[in-house]
């Protein structure tokens, strides 16, 4: 598998969030800042890589009829590990991401990749696939989080670049802002996707 092509695909052309519209709940909920977006993205990547690996290793063992529940147990296990791990190491981030950490288990991206790819491909390829999709997801969250943080809080990654007294456009860090920003981001990403595909 051509790594560059793979990553280009998962970042820009078939980005899980902007291309396939998966994993929207955490995308909208935790991107009030770039840092939270990255945190969630990386946590999800860990789960995605783990579950893809396990599913791929066990793909000939898991009977077809119960594959979905089996996948879910595997995914939920990794999610619980991430949950406890974050609470032990990055306590603040764990508090901020809150409810959405256990919700990683229903992030349609993970179940989607397990079903569409890991259950049908080799271990190394599944590992890369999990990694690439996870990073693509993180990328989308980072962009969305950055836009919302820059306009809504006047900072990026916590680093304020104008003084407190300057007004910021608050709506960006609020719920409506999340939807609106994603909407416009989709326009941008669709354009990029078209351009990149036109190249091929």
């Amino acid at each position, binding site marked *: 598998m051509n790594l560059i092509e793979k990553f280009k695909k998962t970042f820009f052309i078939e980005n899980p969030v902007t291309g396939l519209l998966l994993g929207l709940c955490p995308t909208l909920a935790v991107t009030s800042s770039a840092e939270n977006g990255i945190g969630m993205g990386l946590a999800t990547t860990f789960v995605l890589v783990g579950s893809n690996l396990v599913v791929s290793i066990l793909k000939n063992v898991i009977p077809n009829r119960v594959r979905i529940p089996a996948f879910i147990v595997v995914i939920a296990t990794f999610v619980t590990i991430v949950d406890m791990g974050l609470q032990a190491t990055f*306590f603040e981030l764990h508090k901020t991401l809150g409810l959405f950490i256990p919700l990683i288990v229903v992030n349609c991206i993970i179940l989607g990749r397990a079903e569409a790819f890991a259950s049908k491909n080799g271990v190394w390829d599944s590992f890369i696939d999990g990694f690439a999709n996870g990073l693509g997801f993180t990328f989308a969250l980072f962009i969305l989080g950055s836009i919302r943080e820059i306009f*809504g809080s006047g900072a990026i990654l916590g680093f304020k670049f104008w003084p407190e007294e300057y007004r910021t456009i*608050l709506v960006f860090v609020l719920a409506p802002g999340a939807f609106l920003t994603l909407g416009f981001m989709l326009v941008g990403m669709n354009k990029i996707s078209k351009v990149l595909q036109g190249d091929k």
Partner: protein
Amino acid sequence: MAKEESALKVIIVLVLIAFFSAFLLAYVNKVTSGPIEANKKAETKKAIGIVLGDLKDYTFPENPEETEIDNSPVKYFLAKSSDSSIVGYAIVVKGPNGFSSDFDMMVGLDVNGKIIDTYVLDHKETPGLGDGMKNEGFKKQFRGRTLDNTKWSVKKDGGDIDALTAATITSRAFTHGVYRALLLYKKLKEESNV
């Protein structure tokens, strides 16, 4: 024959997966529960340090006392000096009916029931609006107040507290939380004088 085999296989595989994952999680749980407890304690310690401000030379117990005030659960740490006299109170109350939900906050009182400072422990209030209750500008006005020298509601409701701009609900919740801490102080004082 094939069908029977397959049903058995299904059950075995599922059970194995379930067992393995339960095992793995139990292990991770054991490994992480130590650091998690430590993190929680560190956070409480930090909060107490903040709400008790400049108070020095005190110790407080590992675990708070728990009771109820104003129909709401409340926990408190008694800060005592080396001769075991009380020098301060760190009280964890709920700010009720916040914009998003109830939130936990800590109020620090000195031995006379005067507010030293406040700290919000956990909240889901609106960033930029309600979460301004963490800012110096808002917190300043609470310092030095007692149960009796202040009318405990926001100005809009006839009280003495300046609400946050466009975050009246959060401000009301916060104010009521502080009020609860003061009520607890009064109750504890009355109980100890009995």
